[in-house]
């Protein structure tokens, strides 16, 4: 037997605790939307029970798993279901191979670098109907699907490390989205940190690996994990906290690396990782947060990304944004957006993606707020596709409030 497959087979015995209670099945967004998916219980603990110490089984129904992690949230026995489905995906890709499309989609970083370098061309081309028709025919990427724009002036180009010796120091894990698509989010985060007197550095980093895991490219994800762990530990060991503005990157550093890397170093790193809002909330709890925020009289809907909820930290974005005077923020409670990273870019999944997104779109419509706020770039992509409200990242709002407060002070 192939060594790689044996390797895939040796991890994880949490499946033994599965009582088949179906809580994961009832909580899985994709299971609710299609009968083509095997469901988290069958694709996770039951498949693992079947193949543990036996011949590896490749089950193509795993293609429908988005790795949103709602199964993990629902399991009363703490079975690591999404870890098991991650391995089922890896087995499938190992045996079946990756399509060119899935290879491209899972390479968010490489695509980001290239698309950013030719940003005006890329963005225009992605809007051209003949181009999209070709993409649909050749790559099975639906022509109706909106894509995030790429920015030429990406965060790599605009940011330079400045060290001035603040008490708290942040090593910023930017992530591909804020790096290449939404440098304004990264810039806002740096501003927010600076308003709190905290220096920000950008360590060497690669894609967190989540898009790779979602497409069964476990080996590549492990390589990226190992690189990021080593790179970030250099900082945490010097007293830096690692902070993310992308909730999927955050989940990878906090949780996924513990299962796909599993080393003591992965554990050491995870303990120092914060979501940006979580970090600010921690500063507030310690009385260190700059609360000089200008009022913003707005009604805002909050969409909680699955990978935010999976971090088990409450809803820090709302906790922080509620500190802005006059700011009214409401949790849409819409569940999964249906974009699910690369999932929603795939022709054969597009119908499910839209079906899932409908609930979210309805809740946005019903609330009828001034705009929507979410941390996740992919949720934003789906919101952009399905709603007519502007979508902002919490850091953009905070930066604006801090800046206005500063202006008011100087006037």
């Amino acid at each position, binding site marked *: 037997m192939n060594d790689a497959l044996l390797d895939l087979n040796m991890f994880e015995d949490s499946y033994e605790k599965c009582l088949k*209670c*179906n*809580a994961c*099945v*009832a*909580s899985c967004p994709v*299971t*609710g939307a299609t*009968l*083509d*998916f*095997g*469901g988290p219980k*069958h694709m996770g603990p039951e498949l693992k029970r079947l193949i543990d110490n036996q011949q590896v089984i490749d089950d193509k*129904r795993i293609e429908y798993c988005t790795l949103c992690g709602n199964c*993990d*949230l*629902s*399991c*009363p*026995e*703490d079975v690591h279901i999404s870890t098991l489905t991650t391995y089922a995906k890896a087995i499938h890709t190992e045996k079946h191979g990756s399509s060119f499309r899935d290879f491209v989609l899972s390479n968010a970083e490489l695509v980001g670098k290239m698309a950013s370098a030719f940003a005006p061309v890329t963005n225009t081309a992605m809007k051209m109907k003949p181009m999209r028709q070709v993409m649909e025919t050749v790559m099975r990427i639906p022509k109706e699907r909106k894509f995030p724009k790429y920015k030429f002036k990406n965060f790599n180009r605009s940011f330079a490390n400045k060290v001035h010796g603040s008490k708290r120091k942040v090593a910023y894990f930017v992530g591909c989205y804020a790096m290449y698509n939404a440098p304004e989010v990264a810039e806002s985060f740096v501003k927010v940190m600076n308003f709190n007197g905290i220096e920000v550095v950008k360590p060497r980093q690669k894609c967190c690996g989540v898009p790779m895991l979602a497409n069964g490219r476990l080996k590549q994800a492990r390589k990226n994990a190992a690189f990021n762990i080593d790179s970030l530990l250099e900082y945490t060991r010097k007293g830096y906290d690692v902070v993310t503005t992308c909730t999927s990157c955050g*989940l990878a*550093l*906090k*949780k996924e690396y*513990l299962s796909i890397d599993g080393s003591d170093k992965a554990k050491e790193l*995870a*303990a120092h*990782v914060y979501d940006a809002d979580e970090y600010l909330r921690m500063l507030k*709890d310690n009385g260190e947060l700059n609360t000089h925020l200008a009022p913003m009289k707005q009604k805002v809907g909050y969409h*909680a990304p699955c990978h935010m*909820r*999976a*971090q*088990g*930290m*409450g*809803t820090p974005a*709302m*906790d922080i944004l509620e500190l802005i005077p006059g700011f009214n923020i*409401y*949790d*849409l*409670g819409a569940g999964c957006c249906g974009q699910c990273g690369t999932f929603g870019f795939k022709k054969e999944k597009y119908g499910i993606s839209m079906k899932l997104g409908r609930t979210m779109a309805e809740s946005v419509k019903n609330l009828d707020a001034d705009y929507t706020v979410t941390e996740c770039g992919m949720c934003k992509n789906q919101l952009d596709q399905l709603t007519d409200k502007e979508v902002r990242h919490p850091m953009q709002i905070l930066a604006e409030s801090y800046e206005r407060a500063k202006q008011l002070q100087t006037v």
Partner: protein
Amino acid sequence: MYDVVVIGQGLSGMLAAIWARGEGKRTAMIMSGAGKIMQSTGVLDLIPGSRGTLDEWMKQYPFHSENKADVLQAVAKFKALTRELGYPYNGDVREPVPVVTGSGHIKETALYPDTVTPVPDRGHAVVVGFQELPDFQPLFISKNLQKERPLMTVDAIRIPLGEDSQRVLTQLDAARLLDQKEVRARCLRRISGQLADKGISQADFFVFPSSLGNEAWAQTLKQFSEGLGARVTEAPGMPPNATAIRLNDRLKLKAIRSGVRLYADTTVTGADIEKNHIRSVRVRMANRATDVAGRQFVLATGGILGGGLEVTPDGIRETALHLNTDGDGRPMNPPDNLFLAGASGGRQLTRHGIVGGVYSLVSSYASVFGLRKTVAGGMAK
């Protein structure tokens, strides 16, 4: 810092969190897993596995008889909440009714949604199963029901839902299929066909899996009862029961939308207790542990089945806060800002492993609003 920190996300925890938030309290709910509503039948019993009356229940649990009005008020508040959520519960705790379960046995229950209809003594009942759904066996159910209801005529039929599936269907899957009007119409035609084949001319009670629609339960109920010209009921059994999932999903959405902060997939591993007063609880997340501070705490972690209590060779251990407990797992001298909701109060509260939905809702109500004499404290004060 929260006003109220609820530990546990079953019926007790969810209600305590929603009601505390409704009182304007900043509320957090610490959750390990989806909570036991998911695995429940979705109907709320008085004394599980028993045909006891409200007076017997009040003696057993125990409540002082003068608290009866408070108990009824708590029940009324629960019913009002379910109406607000678009999934109204019926029933009277003073008059429990017989309902049929997914095994065909009859149990008494106090509160139940519109999709559940009390089972009559006589008449002609037909148990309808779906071929794709192995968790609900109509023949087995009909034989058990016949034993329980000797004066009744009970038949069983089985129809295909007729949708291609790549997995074995659950009751919830069937419920989601029945959300579609065409699927319902097709089912009705197939039921009529089967009834004709069996020479059943007029049945007056139809027993279905706990699958009568998920979102569109009201339409399903209407279309089936009108189409069949008879009363219909869900018989909750193997989870996931749509009867329970509807309640769970609506309560959770209510908690989220009203601003309860959900700490999902976390575990409380201890507390910072000073002078018998909890300052914060230790919460283990995926990557590290953190302290969640609060003014008041509700322990709604469940009993032995729910994982709030654990049987060890040295006795029963309370798993979240590590409180000292007596032989039944009842916390002794609990902290002054801690309220016990549901089965976390000790093994003496459970019957056949569960505490019963009515006690869950009444104790949650008590932890938020306080009942005279029975439970110390109450957050409203």
